[in-house]
């Protein structure tokens, strides 16, 4: 028994020691703040990297996915005057994009952020499932809203153009770190759970 335990745990602790060594090497030229922080979490971190959580996967053509949830991160150059037009349009909606966006039933969240003195735009969303299906949904459900907003994008061919997807892919940058609190819940499932919750509350009220 004692032998068994020894043989079972020895390679494991070797592997852990190796991971710790790897992490220390990685942070050898980090700032002092980074090095001190690493030492505080090195045991926990090395056990995490020895048995990492399920890795992020591809959302399809581009982008990362965890469970059912994917990320889309697009950075585009803006045409002259594009930022002003898009900003004013967004302001006319109070910055709340739900009129159009809530029609796309797989879209969890979406942001428009202007940066580099209005010369570039970040468009970032979190959505259910596969890239191609998601873009197809936009095309089918809100093509004109998309073209209204994207007309500020340099070289945007129009969502009905066969080159639209290639344009998006060209400007999308896949996240190298991704986290979702409820990766297994699609929006449709969240809606179903809300209905189940309401029905359960009603039921419990009645039998009391």
């Amino acid at each position, binding site marked *: 028994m004692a032998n068994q335990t020894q043989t079972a745990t020895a390679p494991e602790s070797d592997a852990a020691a190796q991971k710790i060594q790897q992490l220390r090497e990685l942070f050898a030229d980090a700032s002092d*703040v980074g090095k001190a922080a690493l030492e505080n979490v090195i045991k926990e971190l090395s056990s995490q990297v020895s048995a990492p*959580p399920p890795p*992020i996967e591809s959302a399809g053509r581009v982008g990362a996915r965890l469970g059912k949830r994917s990320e889309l991160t697009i950075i585009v150059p803006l045409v002259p005057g594009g930022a002003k037009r898009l900003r004013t349009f967004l302001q006319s909606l109070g910055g709340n994009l739900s009129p159009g966006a809530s029609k796309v039933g797989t879209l969890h969240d979406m*942001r428009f952020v202007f940066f580099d003195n209005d010369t570039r735009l970040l468009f970032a969303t979190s959505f259910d499932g596969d890239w191609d299906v998601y873009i197809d949904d936009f095309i089918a459900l809100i093509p004109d809203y998309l073209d209204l907003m994207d007309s500020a994008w340099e070289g945007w061919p129009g969502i009905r153009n066969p080159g639209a997807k290639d344009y998006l892919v060209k400007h999308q940058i896949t*996240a190298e*770190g991704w986290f979702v609190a409820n990766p297994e819940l699609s929006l449709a499932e969240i809606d179903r759970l809300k209905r189940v919750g309401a029905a359960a509350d009603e039921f419990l009220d009645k039998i009391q």
Partner: protein
Amino acid sequence: MTTQPQTASAAASSRTAEEKIQYLKELYADAPELSKKALENVLEELKSQVAETPPPPIESAGRAGSRLGKVSELTLIIPLAPGGAKRLRSLLQMLGGNLNGANKVGTVHDMRFVFLDNDTKLLFATAYDGDWDAYIDDFATKIPDYLDVLNAGFEGWPGIRSPEAKDYLAKYQVTAEGWFVANDLTVAETRRLERNGKAMDEFLDKISE
């Protein structure tokens, strides 16, 4: 409902809507043909949106960022120190890119790390519950060292325990001018709903046995 638009206030708000639409048309006067056409296509729908049921505007998440209902956005674009991208990327790869340590914070809906401009900058974007200050405080109290390990590549990062940490973050945060959230529940509420749903399924299974 159909008689309501005749009331004075509704007429006034629809006049404002007319003006808004007119302004939009002017705004798109020098836009490409493509988007002028797109505007024409959605004009009727837009009219009713800005007139009758304008959605509640986005609000401030506090010191920086936008909020809709309970959910806020944080978007940081940060210059990376030399070697910072390589180190952070290696660390992320060792974790399979899955940042599930963020579960400890309890209010994070989603979070991404994206390297930009030939690894000279990092985009860090999250969706979270509530107010900016409380959120940063949560990071600072629950996972300070993980934060410092990840942020070690940020140029000039003072460390989360430094009194300047919040100023640093606010300096590099860019507030979104358009924001949308589909699920109006907090992370905690969504989790509770998930548990209740499972319990309900079990209950229904049992009584149908």
